[in-house]
């Protein structure tokens, strides 16, 4: 089943690339639109492929003590990274690399903010070990 999936994904990518190439000479905006849409469809399909893996890893992490909540933070960070990377790539493709780097900076700040409780736990643990 996933073998057929990969053939379909590859075909969609090639068709989108060819259409974008055709449109690039006539109308550049529409070439960008076709590229964006192809990327969107491919990313949604990739996420559908990857969803069972994520649930499996979630089950695995749930067996550890306190692993489930830490794993939730990790998953959130990965989701934030996906969204930021996607938006930044779109901006770069449209020729706005300054905007892309701002979006990536915002993503880094968000990931840092999400990881803050973990950092606090770690600091408390190490302070406890040191007897402070």
């Amino acid at each position, binding site marked *: 089943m996933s073998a057929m999936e990969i053939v379909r994904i590859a075909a969609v990518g090639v068709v989108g690339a060819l259409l974008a190439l055709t449109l690039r000479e006539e109308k550049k905006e529409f070439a960008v639109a076709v590229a964006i849409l192809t990327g969107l*469809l491919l990313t949604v399909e990739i996420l559908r492929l*990857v969803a069972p893996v994520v649930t499996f890893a979630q089950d695995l992490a749930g067996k550890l003590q306190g692993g489930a909540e830490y794993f939730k933070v990790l998953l959130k960070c990965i989701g934030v990274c996906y969204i930021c990377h996607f938006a930044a790539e779109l901006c770069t493709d449209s020729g706005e690399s300054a905007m892309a780097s701002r979006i990536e900076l915002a993503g880094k700040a968000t990931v840092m903010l999400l990881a803050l409780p973990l950092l606090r736990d770690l600091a408390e643990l190490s302070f406890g070990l040191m007897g402070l």
Partner: protein
Amino acid sequence: MQIDFIFKIAAIGILVAVLNQVLIRAGREEQAMMTTLAGIIVVLTMIVKEISTLFSTIRSVFGL
């Protein structure tokens, strides 16, 4: 996966390019620009819907 979306947007692009050429040859440059603008708006509304699908998929997979 809806590949017909890609075909639709490419078709709109080709149509707008042809209309643009015809209108510019006929000496109606303002209308040519308006046609381009209308095409871009139509395409963008189609894309925005797909972007929201992508973001909701990311949310459901990663539990955001």
